[in-house]
């Protein structure tokens, strides 16, 4: 085994590009481990932990240099992999030159070349965000910050500055937004329409907007605030700005608010503003108190699906329950599925890529399933000790930091979750494996296909031991998404995987199956 490395000085590429390239290089013949990574101190520590480190690298590479580190079977294979990687990197520059498009290096130059720009979408490393966004606000642009690792103080400073200039700062850690029908970052292609959404929960915005679109209504704007916006220290600055903007927007007739329960001060401020609304407001404070919401004259919704349904009903002036599609639980015989479990099969293993969806499942199940463990923070549920090892009923969000350090988010690369599906199938206590499949821009091109590879293997493993595992899924997205929801659903149904119209429906079905 040999370790070889190459440093490309003054070469910078974005992290998603590099993680994809690293994964390609790992598949080269004779390569055991590989990373193509920028030489920041943080990344150097990562290389050390991954066993791809040589002390000389510290001297040779700085934060503006690119490290190609390869562990291979022999010298020749390592060298070949390095050369192929360099060729790939050069190709990306050649492609850019071929397109003949001007690619600016700074915001200042970009603005000169795109006069009238009104929104900046920022996904640079968190520690550089404040410096860049500060000047972007000075130039009068609204900002969506996808990056995480921005300090709380920086978030507050940027939001206060934006407020003073009547500009909007969505995020940090804002994964999705829809403005004027334009889906930003991890958003879905939804119908344009008369329902506006404000969300401090990324996949919550995706689920509600997709369900509304699938019910035949559309979205005016979907504003993401970032999860920390509703903390007392930030004071809900973006949420309040967004609500006011939707009140004033002639194209918005009904408003939906989705968030984990905000801190008390923020709840009071938001509900006071809601009580002055001249348009109907539906609120889902995931697991929050519905009475306060009703008192403020708004409509509480217990789940993301209920929020979507209630908003659609209000927009249409009707009250009927709306079915996105025929929900399978009306046809399914719960007892039959239960009878198919053998004695040892008792527990749920819910493996999520969308954080808000995982959180919603915990809210819906923790009272009925005793012994629920999770890697998320939820007051009434036990924190799991080892995130790689399920205990009794377990809900895991693979989008949490412990799984995404140096890796792509599970919505882009579900490899880690797929191997967990197979692992859970080997556990005689696993009865139900629950999954979310998230479609949309920048997500995996075929989440159902990818999950099915693992599901088939898992079924085989369990089958050999005489066990039937029940796979319960929901597919978040629309037929207008490039992955086409109906095709994703069909693929799953063809392999006898249960597909529910929403995450809440899937969770309620699991409750019927496993409640004590």
């Amino acid at each position, binding site marked *: 085994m040999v370790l070889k490395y190459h440093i490309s000085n003054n070469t910078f590429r974005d992290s998603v590009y590099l993680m994809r390239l690293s994964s390609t290089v790992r598949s080269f013949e004779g390569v055991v481990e590989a990373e193509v990574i920028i030489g920041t101190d943080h990344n150097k520590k990562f290389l050390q932990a991954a066993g791809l480190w040589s002390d000389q690298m510290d001297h040779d590479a700085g934060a*503006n240099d690119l490290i190609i580190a390869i562990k291979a079977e022999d010298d020749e294979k390592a060298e070949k992999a390095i050369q192929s990687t360099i060729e790939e990197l050069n190709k990306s520059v050649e492609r850019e030159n071929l397109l003949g498009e001007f690619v600016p290096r700074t915001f200042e130059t*970009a603005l000169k070349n795109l006069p009238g720009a009104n929104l900046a979408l920022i996904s640079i490393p968190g520690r*550089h965000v404040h*410096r860049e966004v500060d000047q972007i606000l000075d130039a009068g642009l609204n900002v969506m910050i*996808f990056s995480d690792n921005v300090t709380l103080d920086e978030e507050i400073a940027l939001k206060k500055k934006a407020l003073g200039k009547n500009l909007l700062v969505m995020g940090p850690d804002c994964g999705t937004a829809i403005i004027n029908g334009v889906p930003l970052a991890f958003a879905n292609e939804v119908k344009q329409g008369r329902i506006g959404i404000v969300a401090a929960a990324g996949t919550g915005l995706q689920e509600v907007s997709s369900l509304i679109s699938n019910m035949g209504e559309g979205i005016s704007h979907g504003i993401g605030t970032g999860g920390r916006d509703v903390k007392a220290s930030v004071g809900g600055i973006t949420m309040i700005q967004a609500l006011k903007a939707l009140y004033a927007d002639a194209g918005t007739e009904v408003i939906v608010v989705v968030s984990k329960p905000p801190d008390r001060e923020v709840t009071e401020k938001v509900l006071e503003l809601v009580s002055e609304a001249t348009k109907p407001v539906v609120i889902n404070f995931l697991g929050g108190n519905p009475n306060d919401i009703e008192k403020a004259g708004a409509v509480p919704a217990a789940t993301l699906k209920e929020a979507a349904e209630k908003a659609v009903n209000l927009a249409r002036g009707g009250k009927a329950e709306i079915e996105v599609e025929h929900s399978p639980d009306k046809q399914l015989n719960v007892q039959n599925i239960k009878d198919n479990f053998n004695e040892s099969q008792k527990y749920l293993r819910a493996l999520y890529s969308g954080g808000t969806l995982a959180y919603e499942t915990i809210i819906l199940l923790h009272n009925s399933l005793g012994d629920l463990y999770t890697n998320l923070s939820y007051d009434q549920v036990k924190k799991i000790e080892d995130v790689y090892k399920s205990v009794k009923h377990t809900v895991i969000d693979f989008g949490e930091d412990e799984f995404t350090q140096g890796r792509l988010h599970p919505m882009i690369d579900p490899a880690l979750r797929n191997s967990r599906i197979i692992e859970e199938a080997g556990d005689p206590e696993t009865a139900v494996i629950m999954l979310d499949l998230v479609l949309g821009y920048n997500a995996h091109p075929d989440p159902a296909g990818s999950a099915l590879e693992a599901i088939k293997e898992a079924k085989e493993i369990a089958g050999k031991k005489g066990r039937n595992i029940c796979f319960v899924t929901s597919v978040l997205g629309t037929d207008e998404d490039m992955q086409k929801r109906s095709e994703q659903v069909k693929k799953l149904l063809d392999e006898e995987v249960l597909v529910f119209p929403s995450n809440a429906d899937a969770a309620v079905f699991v409750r019927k199956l496993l409640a004590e």
Partner: protein
Amino acid sequence: MEDLFKKELKIINMGLEGFAETLKERGTTVLHVRWQPPAMGDDSLLSLLDKLK
């Protein structure tokens, strides 16, 4: 901010190039910035530059 709802979006994308590509493919006006850490990523040089501002 009212601008944002009333005018066509013109986006400057800084960071992940994929975000600009998907926007471009669906016909949204977007200009990608190939951002690099300022001051060659040198933190001490960066804080010095900030002081000079």
